[in-house]
């Protein structure tokens, strides 16, 4: 019983992490209609920037520094590459961002080398919490809490601010937003930058759990895509739901049929897309 409870708690923690990783991907896809396959490499860049900065300035400043550096890279990517393909077939976005991701992966390889790097959790989050036989590393609890703040904060900002209202409107009809006098290119730049910074912060948080490698982003790109497809395009609540479904499935499946852990998210995605083509909580969106 303790084992099942442990796996459920673990699944929720994993789900919150997956949802946060997918959040930036979902926002950019929702507002700009761009399949940002550079999301994974921006996640990896965040982790590497944190690795460089953490010994110089400590956990919190290093995390902010990593997010800012990757955010600036995000602005450049949006201005130079992504802006050219707004309104075009989403496939163009996929190709151009994937090309960028492959190039940056090689740059990371050249600068930081091929060897994996590991990072210990910050001092304040080391150790484990025991509840009976249940064991939860403090760092994972901290990450789950932090992810909740990011997800909740983004949801509140989108639903309770005028900027959020414009972003939400942009998800349904970007032309109308533009016709009403809002600066659509600037809106897209801001959302792309926010998405980039969330990817970087996710990378920082994940680096102390899963280790660093230039190709690490690719491993988390597809789960992000699945989270968005399952949860629903343009829905923060959908992204959280999608993340939790993947996290809980991954965790509990390892108890039932461990070798199906990888396949189950795809099966769930296929079922969801068959019955709910927009995802579980998806609504009409910019791609339609």
């Amino acid at each position, binding site marked *: 019983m303790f*084992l099942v409870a442990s796996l459920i708690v*673990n699944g929720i*923690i994993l789900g919150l992490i997956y949802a946060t990783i997918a959040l930036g991907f979902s926002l950019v896809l929702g507002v700009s209609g761009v399949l940002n396959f550079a999301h994974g490499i921006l996640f990896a860049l965040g982790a590497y920037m944190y690795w460089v900065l953490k010994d110089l300035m400590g956990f919190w400043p290093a995390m902010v520094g990593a997010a800012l550096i990757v955010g600036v890279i995000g602005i450049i990517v949006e201005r130079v590459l992504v802006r050219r393909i707004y309104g075009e077939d989403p496939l163009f976005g996929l190709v151009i961002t994937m090309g960028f991701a492959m190039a940056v992966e090689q740059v990371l390889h050249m600068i930081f080398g091929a060897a*994996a790097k*590991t990072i210990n959790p910050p001092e304040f989050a080391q150790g484990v919490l025991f509840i009976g036989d249940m064991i939860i590393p403090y760092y994972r609890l901290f990450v789950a809490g932090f992810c909740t703040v990011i997800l909740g904060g983004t949801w509140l900002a989108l639903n309770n601010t005028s900027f959020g209202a414009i972003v939400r409107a942009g998800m349904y009809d970007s032309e109308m937003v533009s016709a009403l006098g809002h600066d659509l290119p600037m809106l897209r730049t801001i959302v792309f930058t926010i998405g980039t910074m969330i990817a970087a912060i996710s990378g920082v948080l994940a680096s102390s*759990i899963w280790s660093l490698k230039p190709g690490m982003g690719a491993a988390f790109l597809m789960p992000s895509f699945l989270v968005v497809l399952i949860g629903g395009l343009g829905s923060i609540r959908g992204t959280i739901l999608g993340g939790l479904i993947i996290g809980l499935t991954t965790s509990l499946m390892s108890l039932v049929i461990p070798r199906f852990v990888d396949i189950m998210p795809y099966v769930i995605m296929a079922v969801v897309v068959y019955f709910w083509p927009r995802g579980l909580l998806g609504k009409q969106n910019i791609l339609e």
Partner: protein
Amino acid sequence: MKSRMIKFVTCICMVLLVGAFSAFAGEKPIKIGIVSPVSGNYGDHGKLERMGMTAALKQAGGKILGRPVVMVVADSETNPDIAARRARRLVEVDGCNFLMGSVSSSVASAISAVAAEKKVLYFATNGNSDSLNSDKASPYMFHVAPSMAMLVRGGGKYVANNLGKKWFYLTHDYSWGHSGTAWARKSAAEFGVEEIGEIKVPLGTRDFSSQLLQVRESGADVLVVTMAGFDNVALLKQLAEYQIYSKMKVWYTLMEFVDMWPLKPEQRQAYANVEVYWNENSKTRAFAEMLEKNNPDAPCPMPLDNGTYEGWLAMKILLAGIEKAGTADDVTAVIKAIEGLEIKDNMRKYPTKVRAWDHQVLTQIDLIKANPEATGPDMWEVIDEIDANKVARTREENPINVSISN
């Protein structure tokens, strides 16, 4: 202007002619196709095996029988279909009579099938599944890596007697992982071991929290792990995170130095079989220093790892075989020359032998214990040096014969 143009064209023609005459005058190079992962989970291991092959070639002066030897590298991407396609291209387009590499047993099986079809010689490096020299054995393949039978028998007895007899298996879900668990099961009666459970983990898994929660609750004495690559770096880290070492001992049926090196000292507490350790003796130490000096982009310091050693050994065996056969064009003659070959200058306590009937290369295995206090690359202590001849499968256990000598 016109005369300058004529002079320029004449110079170009001269250069081309000199190049053409040199090609005719020199010996035709011997091409060795290297199918090895440049990217993916085993990218580091691929780099190491290629470093070993290059080192052996350099030691031989880059030539054999007066002919230059050239390595033509293709990325296997650790994918059997891609590896087979690239191996076929290396033979058909690049004209390679010899193939080398793999890092994964599934990839090795795929390349072996191409080698058998094209009748070229293939050296399977760094793939340890038993099937490579039993049901998937071929007269055209030599299996350089120790099989899982050798590894599990080599270290298993010590583990059962000293670490505990209740074993839980955590394995990569493909032929290599299955092979490790299968041999541990076969040896269980001999070692007096009880199986507590097993979890098969898909390749590419990065988070092991769910699996490790089950391992913690299992009541096992020893967690027997058959995993490698970047997945394993993440697993090693999470073994410490979930305090597995305080509940049980951890034994890797095969560990790569490059996987454990990135970890903090306190996260390295496992026992493991390895195919070589860089600080095993003065010869391995000197070789590792040379490798480090010549390969500043190596994925770890003192980069004499399992893959490096196997790459080096494969190239050394091939060159010795070609020299003994007196030809590189007759593949059958080279295979016959290699069957039964003994390599004494292998830097180890026991010599390397190439067994004729199953094409298994028999090389010493080490059982190591990680030193959690070590801060530099000397992070292991060799507990036992195991003679592969004593732990390899016998003919009764593996009744096949792929030898073409008899």
